């Protein structure tokens, strides 16, 4: 069994992390100097496009590399309808984006911004998969069947005349998703076993785990995989845990083509700006294919053996706060303890939103209540103290008092 983000790519990541740590130290020690304005950079087209035969809409993101010419708005929340603008990008509007099919048919993708009333979707070019969608809807002329085993070409022409082209071959799998049963997953004792059918033309199989810090993906060439609950993501800053107790994490298995695999297994070295594998001509990014094979979620728990861990009920505090909390110890770092968990919202259709926090040596605790399963969406912060049975404190900002009382140890 082999897995990738492989070999030296991983080592480059580690080396880069080491050097970055050194630079962080240098910065902390005042070794940075002479900050000066430089000329705007060299803008290049960046295209991200995935053909997914199981999806009705197909999207092509067209943007430019960052050159310092545009002011970024860091305050925007991630918006799936506006992925470039809301995620620090410079969209390219007015581009001509054409996808050519195996039999000479083609689709001219339509920029979302031009058809949406809210004008969202700058740089997001969309077309319909005629194989799954009954009709083009607002995307007249922008539909083409995305078929397993077929080869497609992409041609993107910017308003300035820059041209990016690429090719992809869709893995030959029926877009039928086998569910992964949802279950409690004790990351201290459990391992997750995944298996799937062989897919012709698949370069690799992507195993993806949607952890709170971001997706952790592995690319394997086998048809089964066993992953331990304690695994950490060595490719992300800080090597965070993949399975975080208290959170509900989506798990998917998909077949990907070579472009997809190469793009995500490689990275530009932070100091030379080279190393990324892009099979596009004329720009950065990738034009790849993905077929979803399995999907599901795991509700991550952990073995309970510390006083702070357990289920808490709100006895004092605004009703806008969750009525209960479930807290676990994620890890210890010296005298600090990382806390994770979830908040009871009463909803049975949605996974309880996550909670993260820190307990220090003096039993002061800070808890961030999240909107969902991502650390990017904090909705409230509680500052308090843990006295062995309760967490008492205030809501940051409003100063409203709160008290959560432990009603039982978690998992019991």
């Amino acid at each position: 069994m082999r897995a990738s983000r492989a070999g030296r790519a991983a080592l480059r990541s580690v080396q880069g992390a080491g050097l970055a740590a050194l630079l962080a130290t240098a910065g902390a020690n005042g070794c940075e100097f002479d900050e000066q304005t430089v000329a705007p950079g060299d803008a290049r087209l960046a295209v991200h496009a995935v053909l997914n035969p199981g999806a009705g809409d197909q999207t092509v993101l067209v943007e430019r590399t960052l050159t310092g010419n545009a002011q970024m708005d860091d305050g925007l929340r991630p918006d799936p309808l506006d992925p470039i603008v809301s995620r620090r990008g410079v969209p390219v509007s007015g581009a001509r984006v054409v996808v050519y099919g195996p039999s000479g048919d083609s689709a001219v993708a339509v920029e979302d911004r031009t058809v949406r009333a809210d004008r969202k979707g700058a740089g997001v070019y969309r077309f319909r998969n005629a194989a799954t969608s009954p009709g083009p809807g607002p995307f007249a002329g922008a539909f083409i069947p995305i078929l397993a085993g077929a080869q497609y070409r992409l041609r993107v022409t910017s308003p300035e005349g820059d041209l990016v082209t690429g090719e992809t071959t869709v893995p030959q799998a029926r877009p039928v998703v086998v569910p992964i049963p949802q279950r409690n997953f004790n990351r201290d004792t459990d391992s997750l076993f995944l298996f799937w059918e062989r897919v012709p033309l698949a370069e690799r199989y992507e195993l993806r785990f949607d952890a709170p810090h971001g997706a952790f993906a592995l690319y394997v060439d086998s048809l089964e995989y066993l992953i331990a609950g304690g695994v950490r993501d060595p490719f992300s800053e800080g090597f965070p845990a993949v399975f975080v107790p208290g959170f509900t994490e989506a798990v998917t298995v998909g077949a990907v083509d070579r472009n997809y695999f190469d793009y995500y297994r490689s990275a530009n070295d932070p100091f030379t700006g080279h190393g990324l594998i892009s099979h596009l001509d004329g720009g950065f990014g990738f034009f790849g294919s993905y077929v979803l094979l399995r999907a599901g979620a795991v509700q991550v728990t952990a073995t309970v053996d510390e006083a702070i861990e357990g289920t808490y009920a709100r006895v004092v505090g605004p009703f806008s706060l969750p009525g209960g909390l479930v807290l676990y110890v994620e890890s210890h770092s010296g005298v600090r303890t990382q806390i994770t968990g979830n908040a009871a919202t009463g909803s049975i259709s949605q996974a309880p939103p996550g909670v993260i926090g820190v307990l220090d040596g003096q039993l002061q605790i800070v808890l961030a209540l999240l909107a969902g399963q991502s650390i990017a969406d904090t909705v409230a912060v509680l500052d308090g103290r843990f006295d062995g049975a309760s967490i008492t404190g205030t809501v940051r900002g409003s100063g409203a008092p709160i008290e959560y009382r432990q009603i039982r140890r978690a998992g019991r």
Partner: protein
Amino acid sequence: MLVCAALLAVGGARTTPAQGGDTTGTVRGVVVSPAGDSLAGAEIRTNGVRRATTDDRGRFTARNLPPGRITLQVRAFGYRDTSLPVDVPRGGTVAVTVRLDAVAVVLRPVRTVAGRSVERERFETSPDVGTFAVSGSTLSAVPGLGEADVLRTVQLLPGVLARNDFDAGYNVRGGESDQNLILLDGIPVYNPFHLGGLFGTFIDDAVERVDLLAGGFSAAHGGRLSSVLDVTSAEQGQQGVHGSVGVSLLSTSLALGGALGDGRTTWNVAARRTYADALARAVTDDELPYHFYDAQLHVARAMGAGVLSLTAYHGRDLLSGDFFSSDDSTRVRSGDIEFGWGNDLAGLSFERPIRRLLGDSATLVQRASVSRFGTALDIGAGSLVFANRVTDVRLGGSLTWHGETHAPSVGYEVARHQVHYALSSDAATANLFALGQRPVAAALYAEDVWKRGDLVVRPGVRVEHVSDAAWTGVSPRLALKYFVTPDVAVTAAGGRYAQWMHAIRNEDLPIRIFDFWVASDRYVPVSTATDAVLGTEAWLSARRFVRVEAFWKRYGRLTEADSADDPDVRGDEFRAVTGHSYGLDLLLRQVETGPLSGWVAYSFAVSRRTKGGADYAPAQDRRHNLNIVATYRSARRYVFGARFGLGTGTPYTPILSQLVRRTYDPLGNDWVGGGGGDPLVEAVGGARNSRRYPLYHRFDLSVSRPFVKRRAILTPFLQVVNAYNRKNVFIYTFDYEASPPTRESVSQFPLLPSVGLKVEF
């Protein structure tokens, strides 16, 4: 003025049994200062006839002496002439230790009692080019970060380039940093660095001398393309136990040594450990997760006419803990990391003179050694485990005849390399990459040093075979020296070199986090280089010379990791690189026999590389490099050291923009779902190494003074690195998310004063 009574110590003069038929005897010994330091260049005479000169370890051997009582006359610059009676056994050897008493240097020291320096000896006898010898005393006087560092001193030699302050690695005459053969008493050392290259691995107190061969080296050396750094262990010739304890801001060290009862066995052991982690633990709640330690042992015993030596080294860097413990609460992170690397060496050598072999005296040398370097990195308790281990087991030997006009030698070297390289994830139950190699490299060589009149010629040839690569190569070597006058010589040298052990690293990265090694096999080619050197050396006085050498070098089949290799394909992990270097080195040196010593080294070098049709300057392509190193030992026993370095900028790849990488979410069929976190923003580079950093310069100072307290010598020292706090650029960081975009510089060493104390006894 210090004028002490002459002290003569004859240490346990013991004789070895007579050997049949011999009518003469031999005196072997060591000449030391009152502090026990070995004295190089001391003359040994009998009846006014010079019989020997001590080497850098203070050792001498005077042969063919008449049996019976003779008077040995010993003289060395800066010390009182001494005579002592010695009973020379017929057909045997007597061992002596001679301690000279220091005198103040006021009597025209330059011209009265000077013995030949090691450099002068080399000049008169060897056709070597690009050589430089540094004694242990010079090493200790060169200002450094916290304490003397052998490799950082090497960086100051002509033809040698240090990429930046943070890297103890070095590049020689345009070569890559893994092309330097580093030997400790003949044992190869694979990664002689601590703390990611910030400090060298050799313990200053355990080093007697360092010799650098920057090119045109003899057929006796192989396996690397650019240079040979030969580090010789110190030997303590005094009876009893002597040594030193040192404390610097960086580490604590202990060195002990002495000669055993009969004076025929000497031993030295030194150990060092950084202590900042222990200090942090004692005075704060925080953990400093790093320390290193090392230890070095050297034992030599005279056995008959020969000497058996044992050298061993053990060193470890240990980095463990939780790097991210102090982060904010909005990140779920606490990655444990365990990172350890280090060298283990052990080697035996036996050197024996043979009185008559085919009509001439000869020297037989036999070596056996094991050298191992290992790196283990465990991120997240098994989430990603990297392991690299290279083991080098080798046998080697040589036989050299010492004729009147010819000194031919033959030798062999057989090395078995074991390379283990693996990347795995226990938690993800995956073997990401694994490589095991066991090549055998064998070499035979022959050469001759032929002296005829004013000409010294050293032709040689080395035949090498690397099993896994199925490669056999013939490497001719030639060096010659013509004496225009007794003090001026013209030199020329050239040769072909091969390298089959390669460090995988991105040479463009400005610092070595770690190296890992692979061997040549059917997929990884044996790298080759050819060089030619032409120069002249002129001695301006008994202790001052100037040398100019021009060099040209061509590289073939260098290896560089291929960032776009296909994980399904074995053999595309490396891309072939070719290239060339040329330039000129200028050296003005004042050798270490007077109060003032040091050197001025200027190098001009041009290097180019070609990879995949693209031509570029490698990261070590510094065009102009100047180092001025001076040590002054005053009459009041102060030792002042100074170093000034000046270099033009090295190349770097400019960052021209930044790419926001989008991650596809198959469940939402969108580009922002599936977990949080900011999108990856990656640098986008321009043409490789197409720009250069600004001028580099730095001035370092040191001062020390020994104080005699009872039977100990206390030497406090003060060092100041970057005395005028020059902001030399280490790297640039670019921010194209800002508008307007910015560039920030990260500096190399700031002004760094440090103090320390050394106690010798």
